């Protein structure tokens, strides 16, 4: 943010009355030095960071070039994990499943939450109630959500097909169909995260000055024109941020899939992290799983870089 505009603190503080002993002791000098405290206050954080974040990142990279099951000795295999992944039918399937999941759930979630935020921004009563209602799924644990929605998707007696029936559609066998299982997972995921993005949009909307709308009213603009030509463009930083964040988190989806469908039927809902988990903790192929993790990292990196460049280009921040 803004540059610090303060004086550099002197290593010996200027004080009013001179201490009786004259020159300040070495200890006191140390205590007031920035460097000392920087070290002390940063220490716990750095230690944790090194131990559980930084070193593991590199360790994981190294691991991805080995074959290891934690019990037998580690073997160096060079790039073979990566080449194997490129030819691994299952990995290719889960990769595209992940893209499918992200590609549908992110846009859907954003569009719906935008509309909801706009609706909520209309200065209506019960705002707090609506906010709370929409945020309820966000705070619930994924386990609870998975259990509940599994039942909702029950083909004979679940709520989903009940409502579909009411409008004359015969609902499919959601979670047991290789075609409909992924849409089911997507719907649940969008449902759960709607409130979160809605709130972010709400904050963004409140940053748009009323003046724009008033000017548009004077020009006789209809509501959809105001929406398309004022609201949406002015919200683009927010939209951008939400989109990038949503993509990154949807690449990492695991809980939903694991709990609702265990990746089935026939791996139609299995995603990268799910296959990663299986390889690491079911088959104990640590090297192979680490290679997968790095491919995931790369995907996230690409999206983040896009955000970074776009931000530079638009001169934001």
């Amino acid at each position, binding site marked *: 943010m803004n540059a610090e505009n303060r004086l550099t603190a002197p290593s010996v503080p200027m004080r009013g009355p001179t201490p009786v002993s004259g020159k300040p002791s070495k200890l006191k000098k140390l205590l007031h030095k920035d460097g000392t405290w920087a070290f002390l206050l940063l220490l716990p954080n750095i230690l944790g960071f090194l131990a559980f974040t930084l070193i593991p990142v590199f360790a994981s990279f190294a691991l991805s070039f080995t074959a290891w*099951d*934690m*019990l*037998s000795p580690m073997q160096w295999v060079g790039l073979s994990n990566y080449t194997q992944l490129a030819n691994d*039918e299952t990995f290719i399937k889960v990769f595209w499943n992940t893209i499918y999941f992200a590609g549908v759930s992110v846009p859907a979630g954003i569009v719906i939450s935008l509309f909801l935020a706009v609706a909520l921004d209309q200065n209506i009563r019960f705002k707090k109630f609506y906010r709370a209602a929409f945020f309820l799924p966000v705070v619930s644990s994924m386990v609870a959500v998975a259990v509940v929605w599994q039942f909702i998707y*029950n*083909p*004979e*007696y679940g709520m989903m097909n009940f409502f579909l029936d009411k409008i004359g559609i015969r609902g499919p*066998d959601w*979670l*047991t*169909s*290789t*075609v409909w299982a992924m849409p089911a997972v997507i719907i649940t995921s969008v449902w759960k995260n709607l409130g979160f993005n809605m709130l972010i949009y709400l904050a963004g909307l409140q940053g748009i000055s009323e003046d724009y709308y008033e000017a548009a009213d004077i020009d006789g603009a209809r509501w959809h024109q105001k929406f398309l030509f004022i609201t949406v463009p002015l919200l683009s930083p927010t939209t951008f941020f939400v989109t990038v964040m949503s993509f990154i988190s949807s690449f990492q989806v695991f809980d939903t899939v694991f709990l609702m469908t265990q990746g*089935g*039927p*026939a*791996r139609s809902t299995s995603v990268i992290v799910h296959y990663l988990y299986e390889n690491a*903790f*079911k*088959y*104990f192929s640590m090297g192979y799983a680490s290679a997968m993790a790095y491919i995931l990292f790369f995907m996230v990196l690409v999206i983040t870089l896009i955000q970074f460049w776009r931000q530079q280009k638009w001169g934001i921040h």
Partner: protein
Amino acid sequence: MRMSRMLVIVMLFSLISAACSSTTTNNTVNTPSNTPDSGKKIVTLDFMGWEASPLETESVKKGLALFMEQNPNIKVNYQPVPGAQYAQKLLTMLAGNAAPDVFFLGATEYRSFQERDVLLDLTAQFELDMSLSDFIDSSAEIMNIDGNIYGVSSCTVSPVLYYNKDVFDKENISYPPSDPAKAWTWDEFREAAKKLTVKEGDKITQYGAFGLENFYMTSAEILSNGGSLFNADGTKMAINTPEANEVMQSILDLRVKDEVSPTAKTLESVGMKANQMLQTGKVAMVVDGSWALQELATMDFPVGVAALPSFQKSTTHGQAHVHSASKNTEHPEEAWKLLKFLSSEEYQIGLINEGLWMPNRRSLYTEEGIKKWYNEAVHPEGFKEMVMFFAEAEAYPFTLITENKVIDIINEETDKLWYAGQSVDDTLANIETRSNVELAK
């Protein structure tokens, strides 16, 4: 700010009570330490198993109480772990030096665990106290890894055919035979299933048969048609044969063509387990593991047990989990004592008596032996004729290979067969190509 202050107070209070009660909880969870008698050192063994049902855990605990009576210097701390991912958890613990001393080990994981060198070699003690010939063929074949023993099983289980006698009586059809020598042929089975399926309007209110789409059961039928899953030394898939093809197609036709079988996942998602389907008469015949008898016997309806329908020969497969010890256990002698007890007639009978297990000791298949465990309240009329079905079962093929990815591949491909319209030819071909890749590793 009053709300937030109250929140903080609530949190602190909960934290304090959490700290206090976690210590009390630890005390109740740990086995209370006894005062050792006559100065003998008390050895505590950690015994881990899975809990397939509360009934089973009860039976195990009763057995352990008996063991502890007989061995006052050994304390067994039994910890059942909720079922799913048991093998992974166990392997993680073994990898992390936090392993239990003695534990259940699924027969299909036994060889792959041994390959990882985490199991205690029991061969020496085994040969002192017992012999492979004490056990039925399938059990012996499973336990024996290249002449060495790393685990001892206490029972055997096999797929069998259950039926609801009332439904059969209603439709005036004779029961399927228990005697494997007289087992129904597949066509006889199919005919009966058709007669037992009742349609009211366009909804089927009673199905003829269910359960064969579970590969555990499917594989038994493949074996009965002379097919096999793997080649002799377990290095390649041998499933893509006309025999297996015929079996899979017949089973698929039961549901898709003849409409005598409901979809597995749909019925299960309605909250009905196979047992309940049979009990309520929604399905007349169910193919399930012999372990189901324990619960079925308590369900208050006349259940019958029969040999599986046979294609060419009447057979089924058998397997059971073994009990093994961790290679790094600090008490190998006491661990062996427990393992020996767990495979003894004494311990087995308690669980066979309730219908959960079938014996795996030859001594329990003789006339006198059978009397020791046969229970009229549990074993239906005619069950005696079936007894040799178990003794002569083939070893469950998956127990003889070490690559557990194969089961996942088979489940994935058969899912496509049963639910997504993939042809039997493609399914078998895919299974073979994909599994061979894994088996070659």
